[in-house]
């Protein structure tokens, strides 16, 4: 390809995947934005009412669990941001997804829907059936669709940003993170009166420990899979509609959720419960890894196209482009490629290369002072052995 063709391809790919695009939160003609704001506002109001009524009695367990889960949220926020290393979702979109998961999907949708469904199962089938299967037949439907609704709305609120199935995967993960954290705090609060309220903090901490241990393989994971499914179902300019694949991913998320909520029943309440839990965790991790690899392909290809002109003119080496557009194995291979003494420089080169990709995305592939500065930063960590930097065939 000639340089002109490479630059044209870069401009095309930046536009396609919405690289560097911002979200506008002033769209009075956007019905999705109105619904998004209204449902979150209701959820916030409902949550505030709950806190107001419970905090006089159980303020201490509420405060402790909120503190613990906030730290937990920071950890998973970092992790989810870390895996979104290609056309990264803007911060405000991630915050919006978290808020939908934390306040709209939980308080406005799941809380009412789950209780009513479980009660209906008890009345229409029998109470034992509701104990065994009620949660498993209510939560996967109500909660997954409630969280997926957030991804759907955000697709139409930020249509230039949320364009690939991987975007849906990441945004879904943030919706799931919000849901997970607020649900965990609610569970901790609900467990405070256990044991007739003799030790509210101790009762809450038991729940906190259990939720901390099982957090990753629940809502964050299910919603990431479901979010990717929603993007496939709806389709975008960068991702043609694939109804079958979309429905399959939504179904996978719901089945994983069903299995998790029905573990005791599936294991017949016996000593095999830990075995079932372990199996479910393994299957869930395998499922999310498969979906990650299926959805991340176009993002990696876009990264490669974005950086191809930089490899062509020697700003980056072909190996560096491979690492930047590749998985952790390629990045590790690149970092280790120069031996122990060169590992730090190579790590900096990768980080600086990612900064250059971000700058190019923000500038829509145009030359700007920020892009030039990012290139200059890269040059600071060039090999200083006197040899010219390796070209694209290195």
């Amino acid at each position, binding site marked *: 390809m000639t340089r002109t063709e490479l630059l044209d391809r870069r401009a095309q790919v930046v536009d396609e995947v919405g690289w560097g695009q911002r979200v*506008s939160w*002033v*769209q009075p*003609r*956007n*019905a*999705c*934005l*109105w*619904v998004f704001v209204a*449902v979150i506002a209701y959820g916030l109001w409902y949550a505030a009412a709950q806190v107001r009524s419970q905090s*006089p*009695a159980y303020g201490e367990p509420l405060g402790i669990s909120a503190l613990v889960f906030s730290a937990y949220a920071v950890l998973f926020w970092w992790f989810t941001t870390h895996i979104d290393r290609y056309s990264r979702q803007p911060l405000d979109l991630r915050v919006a997804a978290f808020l939908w998961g934390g306040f709209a999907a939980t308080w*406005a*949708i*799941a809380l*009412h*829907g789950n*209780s*009513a*469904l479980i*009660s*209906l199962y*008890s*009345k*229409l089938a*029998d*109470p*034992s059936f509701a*104990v*065994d299967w009620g949660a498993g037949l209510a939560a996967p439907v*109500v909660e997954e*669709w*409630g969280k997926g*609704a957030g991804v*759907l*709305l955000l*697709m*139409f609120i930020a249509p*230039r940003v949320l364009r690939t199935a991987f975007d849906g995967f990441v945004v879904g993960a943030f919706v799931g993170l919000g849901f997970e954290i607020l649900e965990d705090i609610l569970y901790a609060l609900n467990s405070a*009166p*256990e*044991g*007739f*309220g*003799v030790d509210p903090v101790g009762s809450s901490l038991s729940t906190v420990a259990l939720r901390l241990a099982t957090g990753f393989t629940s809502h964050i994971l299910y919603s990431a899979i479901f979010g990717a499914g929603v993007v496939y179902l*709806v389709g975008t300019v960068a991702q043609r509609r694939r109804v079958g694949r979309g429905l399959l991913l939504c179904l996978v998320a719901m089945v994983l959720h069903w299995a998790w909520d029905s573990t*005791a*029943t599936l294991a*017949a*309440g*016996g000593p095999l419960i830990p075995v079932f839990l372990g199996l479910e965790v393994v299957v869930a991790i395998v499922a999310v890894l498969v979906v990650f690899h299926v959805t991340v392909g176009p993002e990696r290809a876009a990264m490669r196209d974005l950086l191809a002109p930089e490899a062509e003119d020697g700003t980056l080496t072909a190996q560096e482009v491979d690492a930047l557009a590749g998985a952790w194995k390629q990045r590790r291979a690149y970092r280790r490629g120069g031996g122990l003494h060169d590992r730090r420089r190579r790590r900096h080169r990768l980080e600086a290369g990612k900064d250059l990709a971000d700058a190019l995305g923000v500038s829509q592939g145009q030359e700007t002072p920020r892009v030039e500065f990012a290139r200059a930063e890269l040059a600071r960590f060039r090999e200083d052995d006197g040899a010219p930097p390796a070209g694209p065939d290195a």
Partner: protein
Amino acid sequence: MPERQSVPPDWVPVERRWLGMDRATLLPAAIVVVLVAVTMWGLPALDRSVPVDDPARAGDVIRVDAVEFDPAAGWSIDSGVLASEPPESGGFPNTAQVSKDGFTFSVVSDTFDGTPAELMAQLQENNERLSNGATIDMGQVETFRTDAGARGVAGRFTFAGGAGLVAAYVFDGTGVEVVLTGPDETDDADLQADVVGMIRSIRPVTSVEAP
């Protein structure tokens, strides 16, 4: 017609509007509104419209985690699981409720290390902590014995909606709270006998049935 310039971001062309809104956003917004309406109002309304139709029969036993009691025949089992119909998951819920003629009889079982009197004091402490307006008349708490010979305490309590009876038991580390609410007065001797019978029937589960 002059040539059209490039459309600015977030500009909604007039031909794409309906009642001033972007037509492309109406369907997804409507889908979510329907989802929210169904879960927030539809399902709860449907649940309320379906009556509980599960009258207790003579000989029924409701198991509440580690304890059980004999619901009076004819009372409606609003929640709770019969000991004869154990869930496959092996765990029974720790709450149950039966009702009749405006009276509700609810049972909660949970871990408690202490005496029935101490449990009653804890229940009053919870009322004060929650500021729920309920007050147990601790000066009038009386001791009684169940059919199985276990000791319990019972007393009257008042709350914003009226008055009721609360009883507390402790069976080897398991506390039980029973709350009866309903009309202030009743001259239905059968109903009173039902309540007394249920209160006295509460006992720990001695033989665990295989699920």
